[in-house]
């Protein structure tokens, strides 16, 4: 492998490195562009738990939309618990307020017996639509996000995958 790199012309090597940088920055721009379009800090999320089974299993990919601010009951929303950075995907089972009053929501996982009051921050009984919710689920693709669960559970996989991707992009000659 190293001999393959050292055998290249400097100009060709630079072109390959630039190519790799272009791939990374394109992916980043697509993500951020989608984020602006949907008004959500995280427009695509991977399901991490079985609390919405059988609708969503671990590793399923969800597409969010955050421009409809009058969230209705029965919608599936993704929210972050205050003070924790773990997105949770659950269904809205109670809705109060709206209009000029803040919209308050209570959520529950389809597969859980109890609602989410226990999950919320201490002293918080309802979610604030504007502050806590990062999007409402509109689209669904099963399983393809499972690789991110594997990566977060086995961090060394990240190094391996990035290494392989880099090697392929740099070494392929076209």
């Amino acid at each position: 492998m190293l001999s393959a790199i050292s055998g290249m012309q400097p100009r060709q090597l630079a072109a390959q490195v630039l190519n790799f940088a272009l791939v990374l920055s394109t992916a980043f721009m697509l993500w951020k562009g989608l984020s602006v379009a949907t008004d959500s800090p995280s427009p695509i999320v991977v399901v991490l738990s079985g609390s919405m089974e059988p609708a969503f299993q671990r590793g399923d990919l969800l597409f969010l939309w955050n421009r409809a601010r009058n969230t209705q009951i029965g919608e599936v929303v993704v929210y972050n618990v205050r003070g924790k950075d773990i997105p949770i995907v659950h269904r809205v089972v109670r809705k109060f307020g709206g209009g000029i009053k803040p919209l308050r929501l209570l959520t529950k996982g389809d597969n859980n017996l109890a609602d989410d009051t226990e999950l919320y921050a201490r002293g918080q009984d309802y979610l604030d639509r504007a502050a806590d919710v990062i999007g409402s689920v509109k689209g669904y693709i099963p399983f393809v996000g499972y690789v991110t669960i594997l990566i977060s559970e086995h961090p060394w996989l990240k190094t391996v995958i990035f290494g392989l991707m880099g090697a392929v992009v740099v070494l392929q000659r076209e």
Partner: protein
Amino acid sequence: MHSTLVRAQNVFGFFTTVAFIVGALVAVTGYFSLPSDGNSLDVSVDLKNVQVARGRPHYYSSKREEYAQIRFDLDADLSPLFTWNTKQVFLYIMASYPPSVSSASRDSKKKGSSPSPNPGPSNAIIYDKIITSRDEAHLELRNQRSKYQITDISGRIANRHNATLEVAWNVQPWVGALTWGTSSEGRSKAFAFPALKSTGAGGGGAATATKKKNVAGEQTMGSAAPAA
């Protein structure tokens, strides 16, 4: 150049392309074979009984709130929602009632005319059911007890008027867009939440206490369930 790596790359690329196209076709055809109008479905709901009692949100809470327990009849045939791309139908019945009138009018006076100053109706799901096959899609419930005892955000729900029950559903696809629907038939006549049960002046202590305990017990039932 036909090395093993290039062949593997080509096979994988072809596989993902085919999988993507098939998934897109399934999503589009499934979406368009759903009934476009919920009114074409055979759905009706009727209130049978509603009671309001005091209770606690969970066993260790010192908070006292008013909880409504509702009984209803439901007839629903949701089998047209099962296309070849339907993974499950989440059926839910919600109680819908106006938000407390006093606070709404006070707020609208304070802030003047903003785009839609009035808060929408308050909603709470009283019953839900996950339906995963066409065979289970025909529901006929008689005098069914609500799964969830509901309360308002203020903790007070007694003596509210103009409440209705409404049936709604969410179709979860195998791949593609989630859809929601209601039917104009699937809405009950307006009813009122009655006054608090068994609040006799002084005498009703024992009855109130047992009722409280029941409510608290049921609310606590699943509170330790794992989530997230």
